[in-house]
């Protein structure tokens, strides 16, 4: 029974190879709103199973979680499809929740940490259809020179990637710090490597969109001012909430 429970948690807090369920499921969901919802709910399901069954978790699972996070982070370096990239970074991030789970952190704290990661990925999820509508695909390396031709969309994309890669002030950053503060030295080192890989993968992804010379004959319309403001508002809300929650110690961080 424990094994079955572990397998169930391993699907929702992705552990390799069970994590393929998450990545496959995420990629094939067609609507952005549904993806956003799934990103929010998926780790919470895993946490619910874990806390409702009170299953005893062995220490090695934390290492497995870290390895899963590192594996996906490493694989992200060669990804060009933005949707897959989001699926992988979320798998990598959710896998890190195992560290808190094994360390028996409080349920509220872990749920907030899960929500912190999820919230940061929602921005990226929202950007995917924006890219697809204008460029045909959210695929890095096909449309260089976006920074000059579509500056607003390029800005939004950069912010979304920064949010996803746990850049300071975004919820994922505080969450990562919270998980890091409760980890052993060696695990912390591993997590920092994962963080480094996320940033590297983020830069590589942006390289395929922003710089270079626009090669298509037509330039699609940029984001409207209204959409840009809406995105900005979402961003401020996210950063504000993260800062407030973090200062209250609810994410366990600073």
């Amino acid at each position, binding site marked *: 029974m424990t094994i079955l429970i572990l397998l169930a948690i391993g699907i929702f807090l992705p552990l390799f190879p069970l994590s393929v369920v998450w990545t496959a499921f995420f990629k094939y969901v067609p609507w952005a709103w549904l993806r956003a919802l799934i990103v929010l709910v998926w780790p919470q399901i895993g946490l619910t199973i874990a806390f409702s069954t009170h299953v005893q978790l062995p220490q090695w699972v934390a290492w497995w979680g870290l390895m899963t996070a590192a594996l996906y982070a490493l694989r992200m370096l060669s990804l060009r499809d933005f949707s897959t990239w989001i699926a992988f970074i979320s798998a990598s991030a959710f896998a890190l929740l195992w560290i808190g789970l094994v360390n028996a952190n409080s349920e509220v704290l872990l749920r907030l940490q899960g929500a912190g990661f999820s919230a940061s990925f929602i921005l990226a999820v929202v950007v995917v259809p924006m890219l697809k509508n204008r460029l045909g695909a959210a695929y890095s390396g096909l449309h260089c020179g976006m920074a000059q031709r579509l500056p607003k969309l390029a800005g939004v994309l950069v912010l979304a990637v920064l949010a996803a890669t746990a850049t300071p002030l975004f919820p994922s950053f505080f969450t990562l710090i919270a998980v890091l503060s409760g980890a052993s030295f060696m695990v912390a080192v591993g997590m920092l490597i994962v963080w480094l890989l996320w940033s590297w993968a983020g830069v590589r992804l942006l390289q395929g969109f922003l710089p270079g010379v626009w090669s298509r004959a*037509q330039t699609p319309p940029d984001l409207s001012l209204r959409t840009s403001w809406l995105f900005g508002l979402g961003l401020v809300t996210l950063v504000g909430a993260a800062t407030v929650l973090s200062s209250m110690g609810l994410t366990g961080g600073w």
Partner: protein
Amino acid sequence: MSLALDRKLKIRAMVYVAGEPIPYFWPMRNFIHHNPLHGLEKLPFAQAVEKGQALFHGKGFLPRKTYQRFLQEGKIDRASLLSGVKDFVATRNSVPGVDLSHWLMTLLTQVAEPLSKECFVAGTGDVHHALNGRVPEGFRPVDMDALSTWLHKKVGVARPIYEAVDILFGTHIGTTLDDLLIKSCLDFFDEGQSAWTMPGRESGLFNAWRELSRRNVRLFLRGVNISQILAQSTTPEGAIAYTMDTLAVPEARWADYFSRELVHLHGWAGFIRWRSSAKHYYWGQHYPADLVDFLAVRLALGLALLKEEANSNMPMSAPELAQFIDTYTAEAFLRHEFYSGDVVPQLATQVEDAILRGKQSNISRVFTTYVERKRADEAMLLAQRLHDWSTHASNTSVLASLSVEALDSLLATVQAFEQTEGMLWLRAMETRAMQVLLRDVDVTPPAPRDKRPFAQALFCIDTRSERIRRQLEHIGDYQTFGIAGFFGVPIGILELGKGSETHLCPAVVTPKNLVLEMNASGPVDESVVSVFEHALHELKNSVLAPFATVEAIGLLFGFDMIGKTIAPLAYGSWRRKLFPAKQMTRLLLDKLGREQADSILRAVQRAVIVKAVEHELGLPPERITDDLVRQLRETALTKEMPSDELARQLDLDLAACNAFVTRLRDAYRINRQFSRLQFERLGRIGFSSNEQAHLLGQALRSIGLVEHFSRFVLLVGHGSASENNPYESALDCGACGGNSGIFNARTMAQMANKSEVRRRLREQGLDIPADVYFVAALHNTTTDEITILDRELIPPAHLIYLDRLHKGLKAASRLCAQERMATLVPSDIGAPPDANASSRLARRNASDWSQARPEWGLSRNAYFVIGRRQLTQRAGLAGRAFLNSYDWRVDPKRRLLESILTGPLVVGQWINMEHYFSTVDNERYGSGNKAYHNVAGRFGVMTGNLSDLRTGLPAQTVLKEGHPYHEPLRLITLIEAPFEHARSAIEGVVTIKRLVQNGWIRMLVLDPETLAVHLYDHGAWQQWTCLTRLFSNPQGVIEA
């Protein structure tokens, strides 16, 4: 592997041929404007542009949108455009229901983007379906043979093997190869920028690189096994042969293959090509390199990198590549689509997955899906564009009613038209420019003068002189002339304090005579600041010192930085005061007699010996007697042992004295052999009186200045001043080989003021009155200031007029600055600055180290006028014309005209073409954004820290606010002379004849006797228009 001599020679010959299309790249210290397609000038302009596109991937014309903007601004002649369209339509089959002239004209003027794009998958039938609102027909099998042929053309034949691998397998061999090669070039060609230099450079590029690469641990660590390749041959030809044999490229394709390899880094290749041909170039003499070396390094590295990337599926040679395409055509196509960036975005993930999995059944399935989607996309896109076009042409229904055959004919016509439309735009733009020029020329004969002008000024033909000449003539009684800025005196100058000779003449000329700049103000102690600067330079270049230096005196740099940034003008002025004023100098330009040469040689050797005794033995000056120096010199020149007496005078024992004398012979080169060499070199110094009279006479006659000389004849050379600007030399005088014209002006003035020279000229019928004084001056084109040089030599009787001259020059400068600054400030600034503000702004530009555009230079050049000044005196040519004064009446044998065509016009054409191509494709033919440039090896610039040497002009020189500031036109040349006279001169100069016939120059001849204007067009001379002389209104007008 040892190659036979004939094979070596054959490879050398192939590399030579392969390198021919690549233009020379001169070191930027002496920037030479050049045509990036100079190697293709034997072809007609349109063909050369097409070939340039294939070779250099550079565009030959502006985007249609930009031409449309020019059309709206009235810079393009619509009638000429329409005429071009009609000429084109006459060569095509008609399409039922489509008025081709109207439709194509609409396409040109109202549709922003080109319509035709290569549709490989979709056929006309698919487009026809799409036009009629139907989806393209269902599955249609792909002709795999046609696909294979297409792939061979795209990937197989035209590209080097590694490039094909990159495009089929997504590797980055080409980029890595370029990076490694650039690093090697930076190491080898460094001209003193690096503190540590590459070892073994004396043995040549290939040998030095080979020795280093065999021990290169970094290459070894990354798995590049270069040693194995280098072990096959010790010569560059051997390495080339080995690589090509390994890649199994058929020998018939080698020359093309080499071309493709060389143009990858055409900046470096152009530099090496020039360097290997420049016999006088110091660095080239000491560290030899040629294109064979360069290619051998490139090929060997390329092969090593290819082997590093090798996997089981990857083709490693030409036959394997061909086999891969033939066997796995579908996979090759998908790979090509994906890695070339042409993939249908919606299917990118599927294609990538299929490629990475490598399963042929999966690839086959994805291929089928992909081709269908691509076909539909291509058809829909083209149909949409055709529909938009028909809307613009106000005939939306006709397309749907066309048969497939008619649509096919229409598409073929559009494709052919869009391939040639660049020339239509260009010709229409040139037509307008010619109309503007001829509208403003004044063909009225000049009224006879009752008194001579206050001053006459000879300016360079440079376009920047046009403004200042116009202002000067407007200010007062000044007469100006245009002459190539070296004033017809090709010289090599050995500047005071410089160790090498600089050529001051057009790049096409090699000077025979040398002029020496001599100190005329006595010895001057080095200033404290100079000593400090020198010490700082030494510290910066050592290994550890920079760490301590930054801590110790880093703050000083901070002050310097703040001063230069906050108040460049005031700070620059204060900083200049720290350095001693420039020494007074004279030019040694008279031919030396044997005795004089001997005496000079002796004087130089004596000076060297005095320095040597002071430095090596530390004797005080009072003990270094003339007799001691004489003894030392004679002992060093003969192979005798020094005497006891000499040793005693030097406070040395005999052995030490002998060692010192030996050192004089070896280190200080006081020996017979070097003396002989120096004696020969002294023979190059100066001009004989005959030569001086000939050069002066020829210069004056060529511009028609043979009588009515003013009291002052100014010889105004020009130069520029800017800070932190690697392109500073590009703003200097092109006729002086990218240097300031200061020495040529001084040389000519010195010659012209000699009574002996004037006497000889008088004998030839050219009488320059005794009260005429030639004054050298310098026009700073950045600030527009004109400075009179060698003022102390002006005769006292002329000094009384000097104040008036000064005031006139200053007023003209200020007005010129005002005119120019209006073009330099941002367009949305409102009212342009007044004369005062403009003058200050111009001076600030010259001293502001953050100013990326200190002046426009020769941007917007369009015309070259060879004729009397009256012709263009009343036309405001806005600094767009090279003005070469010429009076055909004093040139019955056409020699002067031929001379103008051979030198100035060729240089003008190079300048014009450099600006043309830098504007139409600034990234490829120009050098891109200047802000990212870094100086490479002290001879060029790169973008970022590693790139090809950037040739051409930066964006800041030709673009303003993202749009072309320079209007790219072929040089419109107007010769004022009887038609037969001009035609014969053009026919007589082969270079110009070829340039005119191939359409690199638009040649107009204005016959002053008939007022007919002849144009060379479509391979023949034709009368283009006829001007009329209106005596009531002194303006020529074009007859309808």
